[in-house]
């Protein structure tokens, strides 16, 4: 069973991503509504993949990636991270990758692209 964490403040996007990803086999999905909550969940349990939005209150996606990659005490420090950027925001995507994200998908999301990207990191 692969555990996936979706860090996203928009309930509509969370619903859509859960709806798309839950079709995969042996996947358990958990959600967090911002970066701070995401870091908290990552410090508590084991995860195999994280998808994170960029524009979020409190701790945004870029800060979230940076904090996670630099937190030596976090057991999920090296977990694969996919960032969700808005179409046309290439600079943010590049920055996210520099900070340690492993891949990215763009909004509006395409379900096939989400599935393909998620499958690069987990067996589902």
């Amino acid at each position, binding site marked *: 069973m692969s555990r996936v964490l979706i860090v996203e403040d*928009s309930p509509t996007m969370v619903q859509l991503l859960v709806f798309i990803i839950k079709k995969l086999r042996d996947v358990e999905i958990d959600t967090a509504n911002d970066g701070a909550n995401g870091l908290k969940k990552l410090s508590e349990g084991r995860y195999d993949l994280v998808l994170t939005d960029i524009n979020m209150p409190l701790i945004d996606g870029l800060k979230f990636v940076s904090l996670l990659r630099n937190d030596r005490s976090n057991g999920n420090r090296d977990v694969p991270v996919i960032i969700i950027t808005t179409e046309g925001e290439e600079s943010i995507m590049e920055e996210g990758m520099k900070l340690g994200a492993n891949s990215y998908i763009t*909004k509006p999301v395409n379900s096939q692209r989400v599935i393909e990207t998620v499958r690069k990191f987990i067996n589902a």
Partner: protein
Amino acid sequence: MKQTMEKEIRNTEERAHPDAGGSLLNPQKGAEILNMLKRGAEFTHELLRENEKLRYAAARLQEQNESLRKRTENAVARSEIEGMERKLRTLTEENSKLLERFSEVEKENGDFANKYVEIEQENNMLANLYISSYQLHSSLDFNEVLRIIMEIIINLIGAEQFALFLLDEKTQILKAVASEGIDLEDIPSFTVGETIIGNAVKSGESYYSEDTAAKEPLDMADPLVCIPMKITERVIGTIVVYKLFQQKDSFTKLDYELFYMLAGHAATAIFSSKLYTESERRLSTIQGFIELITK
């Protein structure tokens, strides 16, 4: 051989007719022997002729045999060639049939691949529509409904600048109640029947600009998209998009479907949340009044 024979006969004749000197045989006996030898010679001649004929016949037979053998060989070769030609024709036919089938299968493969892409797109669209309508009807709080509509337009359509207008039915004025990427105070009101926005609301027909590039500078009366929100034929407001995050060649099928869904579902969600909020407000007023008079 023939010459040797003739020489022998002559010698014998000479011995049978000695002209002088004493004879060894009597003349009659000699003639008989001579005769016999002559017959022998003739017989030998005949044998030789016969032999010659036979040799000639044998030679001809051999020739015939040779030619027959050649003809037979030719015939065998011809029939073999014909057989091979037949086989070649069959194989060529089979080959062209296989090639035909191959191109049919290839075409079918292409069709399946296209169908698969279509189904995936359809799937994606249905997922978006399902989640959007589910979310739209998940709340009866007016502000929450507005927030959900905004979220859908930002995240699922990819709009960067847009506004939601509600219609005041008495004054026929459209007033912005929510916006993204533009300050709400900067958005003017529009009168029904005037400008692109007012006309779209009057007709109830959605407006799509020909290209999806944002107008520079921003003209509030000249949007990319204007979607009247309707409950049956009654327009309650409109969604107006000024700029998309990413310039597209054209709106996608998903964009049109989402706008179409929003035209109906956003309208009912806004309408019912307003009614609910109003009835809640009235209820609390009544409750307050009752409390006041029963105290």
